[in-house]
């Protein structure tokens, strides 16, 4: 019953679906990477996972994907409170791509969406579908470009478009914008943030961008082998544990952030 209460509180524009992790853990050989994780990830929420390198952030995503084995429970409840397998969209880190291969954006789309070998060419229907998907992330001009020729921001938008087709219940973003310039990051975060209104999905985002997270995330989870701290950006940033470990970094990033509203306010004042 308590679970249902939590779900109800988080209803936004979408349904009642929810991904639950109970006593979740991952162990490689004798090394315990993650343990004792209890999380409810609600539909319509952008949940950000932060933590030091080696904290197990990517491993958590890979375990949710089913790529690595885990202990404990992981299940997805849809709006009728029935358990089913969720459709998962995944945007990997940019570094994991072999950008020398002659693969066009359309090739990548078709490989995901159809079983017809992409080396035989593409059907018109698929081309239109891919083009429409790309248009939703402002990337339809990239359809025939080679993956290796895309900039970091462009590649991530293409991957985001792919993750959204077919429409997922759960969207996993693994440091999607690391190493991308600030304009690219802003554009990407804006797109992801808008998804909450357009789609019925929950988003889990692994990131290091404190300042952007505080603006866009609904909830932040500090992960280091287990959940250290969890709450709204304000709660997490004022948490003592977090401040002790990341204080300087947060203050610096938040400082940058506070600068912006001040300038806007100043402008408004002049007009008045």
């Amino acid at each position, binding site marked *: 019953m308590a679970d249902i209460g939590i779900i109800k509180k988080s209803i936004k524009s979408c349904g009642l679906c929810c991904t639950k992790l109970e006593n979740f853990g991952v162990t*490689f050989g004798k090394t315990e990477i993650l343990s004792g994780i209890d999380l409810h990830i609600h539909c319509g929420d952008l949940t950000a996972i932060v933590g030091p390198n080696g904290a197990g952030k990517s491993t958590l*995503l*890979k375990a949710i*994907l*089913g*790529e690595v084995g885990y202990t404990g429970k992981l299940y997805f409840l849809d709006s009728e409170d029935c358990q089913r397998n969720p459709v*998962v*969209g*995944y945007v*990997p880190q940019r570094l*994991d*791509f*072999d950008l*020398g*291969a*002659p*693969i*066009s954006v*359309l*090739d*990548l789309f*078709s*490989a*995901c969406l*159809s*079983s*017809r*070998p*992409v*080396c*035989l*060419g593409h059907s018109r229907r698929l081309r239109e579908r891919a083009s429409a998907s790309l248009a939703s992330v402002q990337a339809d001009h990239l359809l*025939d470009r*080679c993956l290796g*020729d895309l900039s970091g921001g462009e590649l991530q938008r293409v*991957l985001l478009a792919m*993750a959204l087709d077919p429409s997922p219940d759960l969207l*996993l973003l*693994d440091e999607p914008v690391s190493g991308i310039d600030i304009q690219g990051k802003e554009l990407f975060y804006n797109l992801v943030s808008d998804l909450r209104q357009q789609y019925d999905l929950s988003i889990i985002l692994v990131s290091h961008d404190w300042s952007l997270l505080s603006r866009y995330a609904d909830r932040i989870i500090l992960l280091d082998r287990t959940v250290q701290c969890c709450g709204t950006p304000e709660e997490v940033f004022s948490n003592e544990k977090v401040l002790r470990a990341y204080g300087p970094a947060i203050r610096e990033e938040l400082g940058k952030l506070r600068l912006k509203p001040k300038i806007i306010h100043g402008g408004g004042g002049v007009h008045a």
Partner: protein
Amino acid sequence: MEIWYAFVDHFLPFAWSQHTFMKNALLAVLLVSPVFAIMGTMVVNNKMAFFSDTIGHSALTGIAIGVLLGFQDPLWIMVIFSVLLAVAISLLKNMTGASTDTVIGAVSATMVALGIVILSRGGGFNKFSRFLVGDLLSINPKEVFLLVFTLMGVTLLWGIMFNKFLLVSINPSLARSRGIPVRLVETLFCITTAVIVTISIQWVGILIINSLLILPAAAARNISRNMRQYHVISILITLTSGVAGLLMSYYWSTATGATIVLFAALFYLGTLLLKPRFS
């Protein structure tokens, strides 16, 4: 086969095509080339050049085991052995988490050494040297039929699995999120590579079989922009260098496999020089 002989007699009335062994070899080249072209593109995508090399070299141990068991024609023993090895390597890779090239390097050297030790017992290694260099001209009609089945098998497998192979090679996590059983697909690809390489080894030769797999794909990669171009160019390069290599080896009386590889290497060099124009 009769139809093929009649076809060659009618359309290719040259001195070289009078010999039956050349007719067989030409058909074999035409069958093997597309298989190697489409396998090679995927091997290069998967960064598995070293893996296929190891499978080739390990054929020595396969032959040795066949000889120990007293088989005249060690082909089936070689195939079974290389499949087991391919599965073992992919398991080892997943279990130890060690860098793949380290695992493969260790296996490769061990297998070559083991093969040489067994085969050289009593000083009789020379009679196996045909496996090192390969002899395409010795192919007989029965073996050509084996190649026909291989081509059909690979075409069928590619028709069903190509997109899955491609996604796994691009990014395993992405493939996993699309519901593809990554490990199974990877292992299937390793096994297919092992079977194809091992079947072809007695005609192409252990020493150069990997170049035949890698060079056309690497050349096509330089000048193609999408998967379709990549495959078409790769198939054209293998067919051209295959036929050219066969003919030249006839006139120069050189080893056929090596001559084919040299032509493929020329293509690679050419496309490397053209590359700036295409990027």
